[in-house]
């Protein structure tokens, strides 16, 4: 489903070029859940952003569902984000001016494939049915993350990316959020890649990849 080959990325920082990714290659199959671990600064988030079309690689090939997605312009990348990719960040995922219902539907509607029944089902399963008219700032952290997951899944993405989705949550809530993520990713058959610090969470995934100084160990 997702295949990346020899990804390089460097940033200008304080006048010097810092190489963050130095030839990373990986594959994630449809329905597979892969954990991406590594120390701080190892390039986990950068890799995730590049795979999620949020940022562009300097070099390397990326194929998503048989489509080359490296070297695309911002417009094409934006379309891919809309249609094929779902992202869950650690925090501030939601659009503060929209209520839960609108947030949940937002990406699907952007992509032009809103499915009211599926969305209602998702809200039910995420335990959000009671909160549909609330605004993000009125929700707890766990609820916010569940809205973010719901929004990503509602779009039936080919690729589901999560960047420390439970980083700000307590252990119990984190477990339940992770359960939901895994369950929904499997159910929709999305290729699921999650950045995490937690070895326990990583262990629950199908496979673990570890980044060390810009390379996969």
């Amino acid at each position, binding site marked *: 489903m997702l295949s990346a080959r020899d990804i390089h990325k460097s*940033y200008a920082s304080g006048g010097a070029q810092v190489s963050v990714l130095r030839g990373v290659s990986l594959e994630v199959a449809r329905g597979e859940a892969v954990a991406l671990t590594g120390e*701080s*600064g190892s390039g*986990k*988030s950068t890799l995730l*952003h590049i795979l999620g079309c*949020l*940022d*562009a690689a300097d070099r390397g090939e990326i194929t998503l569902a048989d489509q080359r997605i490296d070297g695309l312009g*911002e*417009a094409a990348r*934006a*379309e*891919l*984000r*809309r*249609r094929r990719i779902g*992202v869950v*960040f*650690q*925090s*501030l*995922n*939601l*659009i*503060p*001016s*929209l209520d839960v219902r*609108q947030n949940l*539907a*937002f*990406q699907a*509607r*952007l*992509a032009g494939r809103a499915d009211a029944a599926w969305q209602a089902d998702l809200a039910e399963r995420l335990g959000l049915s009671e909160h549909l008219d609330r605004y993000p700032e009125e929700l707890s952290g766990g609820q916010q993350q569940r809205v973010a997951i719901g*929004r990503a899944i509602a779009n039936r993405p080919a690729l589901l990316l999560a*960047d*420390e989705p439970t*980083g700000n949550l307590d252990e119990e809530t984190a477990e339940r959020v992770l359960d939901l993520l895994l369950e929904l990713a499997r159910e929709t058959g999305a290729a699921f890649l999650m*950045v995490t610090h937690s070895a326990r969470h990583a262990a629950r995934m199908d496979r673990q990849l570890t980044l060390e100084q810009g390379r996969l160990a």
Partner: protein
Amino acid sequence: MTRAGLSALFAHWRRHPLQLAALLLGLALATALWSGVQAINAEARASYDRAAETLGQGALDRLVSDRGLGMAEFTELRRAGYRVTPLVEGRLEVGGRRLSIRGIDPLTAPPGLGTLAIAGDEEALDGLLSEAGLLLVAPETARALSGAEGLPPLRSSANIAQGEAVTDVVTAQRLLGVETLTALVLAPEQPFGLPPLREATEFAYVEGQSGGDLTRLTESFHLNLTAFGLLSFAVGLFIVQSAIGLAFEQRRQTFRTLRALGMPLARLIWLLAGELTGLALVAGTAGIALGYVIAAALLPGVAGTLRGLYGADVSGQLTFDPLWAVSALAIALAGAGLAGAQALWRVARMPLLAPAQPRAWAMASARTLKAQGALAGLLLLTSAGLALFGQGLVLAFACLAALLIGAALALPPLLIAALRALRPLARGPVTEWLLADARQQVPALSLALMALLLALSANIGVGTMVGSFRTTFTGWLDQRLAAELYLTARTPEEAREIRAFAAPQSDAILPIWSVETQIKGQPTQVFGVADHATYRENWPLLSAAPGVWDRLAAGEGLLINEQLWRREGLALGDPIRVTKGLSLPVAGVYSDYGNPAGQLMVGARTLDAAFPGRPRLRFALRLPPEEAPALAREIRDRFGLPAGNLVNQAEVKALSLRVFEQTFLVTGALNALTLGVAGFAILTSLLTLSTLRLPQLAPIWALGVRPQRLGALEVARTLLLAALTWVLAVPVGLALAWVLLAIVNVEAFGWRLPMRLFPADWLWLGLAALGAAALACLWPVIRLTRLPPNRLLRVFANER
């Protein structure tokens, strides 16, 4: 510690030069507009005091004679104990310029006849009485006359109007080539125990004209300017407030760190207050310079307006008054204090360990909004109540203030309601988000939007008032000044001569004579008019009984002006006692703009019978309009009449139109400035918000909306808010205009102007508002679209 603290605080400005610029520019603009308007007002008022000296002479009673008056008559009356003083007036052609000469006797002249120009100037007095004589003239006139031949030495005095010269009676006679006096002027106080001079002499007694209360007439104009100045200042403070607010918010972390490192709170507050003061001083100084430039640029226009509208000669040159500069600086400091007090207060109450919440300050809670809406409603109700039931000028202005503040406070709740109402129209998630986001941005942008609302409604209100005034006034002038030439002779003899001279060239000579009397306890002028088509066909009657002109001619009725009518609450048919023996019913009411006092019109014969033996010095000439300028010139040259004594109505109309263009120019310039300041307020607010908005925009972007699209949406949002503000500004502006025309004018002057609407102007203004808003958001938006992805991603970044 203080130095370390200061350098930590200042580092912020080094890293955010734009904010510093916004803060300084905002305060400077606010100060500039305020102080500029103040300078204009002060200069104009000083000019009135000078002009009052000139005009004052017309307010003193005088004696004139058919046979001409001379020294013998002066001496005779002085020896009889009366305080009279000789006056010689005439015009002199010097190097192609007309110079009005006024000869006085400084030894016997009462105050108001030119003595102010002599006060404090020993040499002037000595020169006046010397053999060579001396001409006291305005500095401008002195420059224009320098090098002219055949004149006595010139001496400048700021207390003389332009184009006038005050000199000794002897010098005046010599220059004008006359041996007689124009008049004997009476001191306002006559000695104890003498019979009234009016009865003691056979000379014609001419009452002083009391209508020239310049200060009162011009007050409304200054009120306009002051209101504009205040408005601009308020608008400028919005900018300062937002810039200071932002700077404080962004330095929260710094403050917290400084305090954590052991700086006492009091010290921190003092440092911040000191910093604010320093910035205010810098901005205030710049503002003063800018204000001076604004005033200097606008003053010629103001001078033109006042000269034409009220006959007040205002010098077009600005003098620098240190007191003005100091007060402007004080206003800048006060403004900065006002704007910064809230920020300082928040810093003082900031808990040491609370997490940073940079977004919170920009959002107002729903409760605040509700309270604001309630207060706005209360103010608007108060305003309406005052409009309906209030009496007096002060309440009229209170009504205006309540209207404007109420409208400004009502703006945020109304905008939110409007955006909510628009929601069903949204198609697609992005539009939906746009409206929702705009709604959420209203509290943060409310100050800037209020500034815009005030600027727009002031624009509409003042524009409507000035436009209504112009339309009505020019129409009225056409009616009122139907005759071609209006003439006031200085002596009965001159009047006779001019009539004889003009008769062959005129179709009709209509006498206009007037007496000053008391009607309902108020000094009122009574005019006698001839029965002529000029009046029948043209006179601007507001309401009239049938056959009004016949009744006037038959001595069976009289006309009153609108002022008297409104003040006394009169109705057609009500009797008015003109003299002990003469009481006539009101047969009609006419509009009489520009005149604060009451006025009556009766038939010429009626007036004659009621006040026999009055000098007849004024009359109107009817002749083909194209011949009027030539005849006017001939009369002026032949009789040396002062400019004010012979009026060509075509000139008056042309002048009036020019005046209104000037008024438009001044108000237009101030309008543009306030609009500009409001635009700047929007810009600073948007810049303030642009960093804070990233968390709101980043998710949208991450979900697949391109930065260009986001930028376009940002522009659309700002334009939407500006457009909605404009929609609200139109009724507020019209309400403002209505209060100005129907309440303030009536209270201040006794006349009411019909309100005219100029929808095309509103549309243009709307476009201007959109343009200003678009300009204001352009830069923040461009910055947004150029943001590198990692700036946006940082919002979500785990690795910090």
